[in-house]
C-alpha cells in the first residue's frame, strides 16, 4: 500500500549514503575503525564511555542482561506495555520476566509502585522502558533499585536522545545499562542496529566480549598483526554491527540534535491540534514532550478500530501494539489491566524525521473528522 503519510520515512541524506558507500569501496566491512568511532561519538553524546554497537536493540537487551549478570532462575521486572523483545531477551538468558502494570489506563509507563509489590529475593533487575521516546522516571526507579540492590536496565529502543526527568542527561545514562535501537522507523535508521551503553567498565567489557563470540581477539586485530590467534572464554554470539552501518550512524549522530528538535516540534503540533478533541486524548503532558525524543505519536480513543480504519482510508499509516501480557507466549503470567486497557485504546500515528508540519496537519485533520 502506498501511504500519504507513513510511519517509516527513512530518506537518507547524500552524506549518509556516501558514508555507507565509501566503506564498501574500502573493502573492510566488519568491526573496524568506523564502529569504534561510532561508539566514541555516541559515548560523547550520552556522556558514558562504555558504548558497544550491536546488531539490534533486541540483541543489545540480551547482551546487557548478560553483562549485568542475569541468568537462569533470576527474575526481571519489566513493564507489561513494551515491545516483546524485552521479554524475549529475559527469556533468552534463562530468566523469568515479571510484568509490572502501566501507571494508568492513559499512561503505559511502568507503575513505579509495582516494583515494591513484585520484587522478590530472586529479582535481579528492572527493565525500564521509555515508550514512544517519552522518558519514564529513570532517577526515581534508579534510587529504588539501588536501595534494593538490584540492577536497572533502561530500554531506550524507542528513545534516542530523550532527557531523563529533571536532568540534562539522556535516558540510558541513568541506569546500570541502557540499550538503543537503530531500527528504520526511528531517528537513526540504519536498517537494523543497536547500541549498549554501560558506565561500569566490567559490564561493558563483558558485553564487548559476548558481542563477538567471546573471542579474545577479533578479525581486525589479526588483520593488523596485533594478534595471531585467540581463545574463546565464554559462550558468545554474533551480535556485531558492520562498518557501513556504523559509518552511516556517525553521520546521523552529527544531525541528531536538530532531528530531535524537529520531532519535538511535530509532537507539539499534534498535541496542540488535538487539544479539546472530545474523542481523542494524548497520554503525555506538554512539559514531557519538551524533553522527549518523540518516536511515533500515540493517541487514545475508545473506538480505536474505527479511528484506525478512518486513517487507513485516508492512506495514513498507523500501528498499535499489544501489551506483552496479551501475547500467547506470556499470557496468564501477570494481571496488568491498565497496560491492557492502554494497549486496546492506543493508536500510533506517524511522527518521523522527514515529516513536515503540513503532514501533521493532514493527519490531525483526518483524526478530527469523525
Amino acid at each position, binding site marked *: 500500500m502506498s501511504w500519504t503519510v507513513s510511519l517509516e520515512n527513512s530518506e537518507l541524506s547524500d552524506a549518509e549514503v556516501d558514508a555507507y558507500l565509501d566503506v564498501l*569501496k574500502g*573493502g573492510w*566491512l*566488519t568491526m573496524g575503525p568506523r564502529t569504534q568511532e561510532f561508539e566514541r561519538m555516541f559515548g560523547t553524546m550520552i556522556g558514558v564511555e562504555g558504548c558497544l554497537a550491536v546488531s*539490534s536493540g533486541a540483541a543489545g537487551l540480551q547482551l546487557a542482561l548478560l553483562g549485568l549478570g542475569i541468568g537462569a532462575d533470576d527474575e526481571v521486572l519489566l513493564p507489561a506495555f513494551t515491545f516483546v523483545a524485552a521479554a*524475549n531477551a529475559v527469556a533468552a538468558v534463562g530468566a523469568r520476566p515479571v510484568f509490572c502494570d502501566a501507571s494508568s489506563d492513559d499512561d503505559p509507563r511502568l507503575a513505579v509502585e509495582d516494583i515494591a509489590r513484585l520484587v522478590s529475593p530472586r529479582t535481579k533487575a528492572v527493565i525500564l522502558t521509555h515508550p514512544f521516546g517519552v522518558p519514564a522516571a529513570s532517577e526515581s526507579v534508579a534510587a529504588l533499585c539501588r536501595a534494593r540492590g538490584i540492577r536497572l536496565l533502561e530500554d531506550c529502543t524507542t528513545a534516542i536522545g530523550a532527557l531523563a526527568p529533571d536532568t540534562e542527561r539522556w535516558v540510558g545514562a541513568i541506569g546500570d545499562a541502557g540499550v538503543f535501537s537503530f531500527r528504520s522507523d526511528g531517528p537513526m535508521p540504519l536498517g*537494523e542496529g543497536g547500541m549498549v551503553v554501560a558506565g561500569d567498565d566490567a559490564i561493558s567489557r563483558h558485553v564487548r566480549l559476548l558481542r563477538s563470540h567471546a573471542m579474545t581477539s577479533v578479525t581486525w586485530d589479526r*588483520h593488523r598483526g596485533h594478534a595471531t590467534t585467540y581463545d574463546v572464554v565464554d559462550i558468545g554470539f*554474533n551480535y556485531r554491527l558492520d562498518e557501513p552501518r556504523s559509518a552511516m550512524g556517525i553521520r546521523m549522530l552529527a544531525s541528531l540534535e536538530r532531528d530531535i528538535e524537529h520531532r519535538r516540534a511535530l509532537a507539539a503540533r499534534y498535541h496542540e491540534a488535538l487539544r479539546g478533541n472530545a474523542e481523542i486524548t494524548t497520554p503525555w503532558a506538554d512539559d514531557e514532550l519538551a524533553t522527549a525524543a518523540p518516536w511515533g505519536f500515540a493517541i487514545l480513543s475508545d473506538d480505536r478500530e474505527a479511528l484506525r480504519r478512518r486513517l487507513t482510508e485516508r492512506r495514513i499509516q498507523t500501528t498499535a501494539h499489544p501489551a506483552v501480557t496479551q501475547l500467547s*507466549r506470556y499470557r496468564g503470567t501477570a494481571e496488568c489491566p491498565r497496560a491492557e486497557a492502554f494497549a486496546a485504546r492506543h493508536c500510533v500515528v506517524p511522527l518521523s524525521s522527514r515529516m513536515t508540519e503540513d503532514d501533521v496537519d493532514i493527519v490531525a485533520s483526518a483524526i478530527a473528522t469523525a
Partner: protein
Amino acid sequence: MPDIPVFDLRMEAEDLEAVETALRSGRLRSGSGTAALEEAFARQLGVPHVVALSSCTAALHLAYLAAGVGPGDEVIVPSFTFVATASAVVYCGARPVFADISGLEQPSIDPADVERKLTSRTKAVVAVHFGGYAAPVDELADLCAHHGVALIEDAAHTPSAWLGGRKLGTFGLAGAFSLFSNKVLPVGEGGFLATSDADIARRCRELRAHGATADAWARDESGDDTYDVLESGFNYAFDDVRSALCMSRLDRLEDDIETRRQLTMRYRDLLKDTTGILLPYTDEQVAASSGYVMPIFLEDPELQAAFRQELRENDGIQTTVLYPPTHLFSAYRDRFPTPALPNTELAGQSIVVLPMFTHLTHEQQDRIVGAVHKALGR
C-alpha cells in the same frame, strides 16, 4: 597491515550501484529486496525455502531449534570448526558433543566417530563443509535417518559447492550459510537458512522477527498489523540494503568460485612436490568445492607458530589458523569435558591457511609459495 592479507574484498561498480539504489529507496529494513534475494538463493541452491538472517550463527541457532534441540539434548558437532557451530547448541540449552575429523586428508567430521557418540539424548548431527569441501553428508544423512536424528549442515563456507551433483546445504533438515565479509559470498554480516520444509521456514521467519506470527513486511503490505507471539524469538533480521549487495554479488558467485578453484589448483600444482607439508583433499574435490580457503598442514606441528611468524614478518604474508579446536577453548574445556580428539588436535596444531581471494595474482601466489618453501628450509 600485511602486503598480502589472508583475505581481501573488492566491491565492483555494480555492487555500489545496487546498494545506492537501496539506500535511496527510503526503505532500509527487510522487505521486497530481501524476499527477492531469498528466492534467488533458493533457486541457485535448488531448495524450496531460504530465510535471510543476520548471521550464519543465527542460522545455526534456528536450524537447531527446527530440529527440536532443547535443554538436556545432545548435538554431535565437529570441534575442527568455528566456535559458533557449538555455541549455537548451547543457546538452545543443549550440550555439544564433539566428534573427531577423519584425518588430515579429509578434515571433516568422521561418520564412524559420530556413530560412536550417538546416545539416546542425541537430537542432531552437524556436518561442517570445512574450507569449502564436502563433508560426507550422503553417508551422514543415511546414518542420521537410521538413528532418527536430524542432520544439520554448517555450510558457512559453501554457498555453491557440490557432492554427487547435489548442492551442499541441501542434504539435511536445514543448511546454514554465511555472508561474513571474508566468505565466498561476502556482504559484511549476514546468513541464510535453507530448508525444504515449509513449516520450518515459516517458524524461522517468525523466530527471526521476535516470534511475531506475521512478519513486519507482510503486515505492512496488507495494512493489518495484528500479531501474536507463540514462542520467544530474536531479532535475526537482515535488511534490504545488504540484500541488494548480496543480490549483486550473487550474479558473480559462480565466476568467483571458478576463479577460486583455478587459484586453488595453481597452488596445489606449485606445492605438490613440497616436502614437509600435506595438502588436504583431492584435485577432483577442488572441482566441486567453493574454493573458500587454501589450507595446508605442516608435517611438523611444532613449526606452526614459527612458520606463520616468518611468513608474516619476512614476507608480509598474513596466514590464519582455521581452526583452533573448539573443545580446547577455555569456555568449553571445563563446561563440556571431551576425551582427546587426536585428528582434530593435530589438525589445529599443524594447519596454516594461505591467502585466497578472487583478485589474488599469480605473482602474489608465486611469492607466497616461495615464502612457504623458504620457511620450510627448502
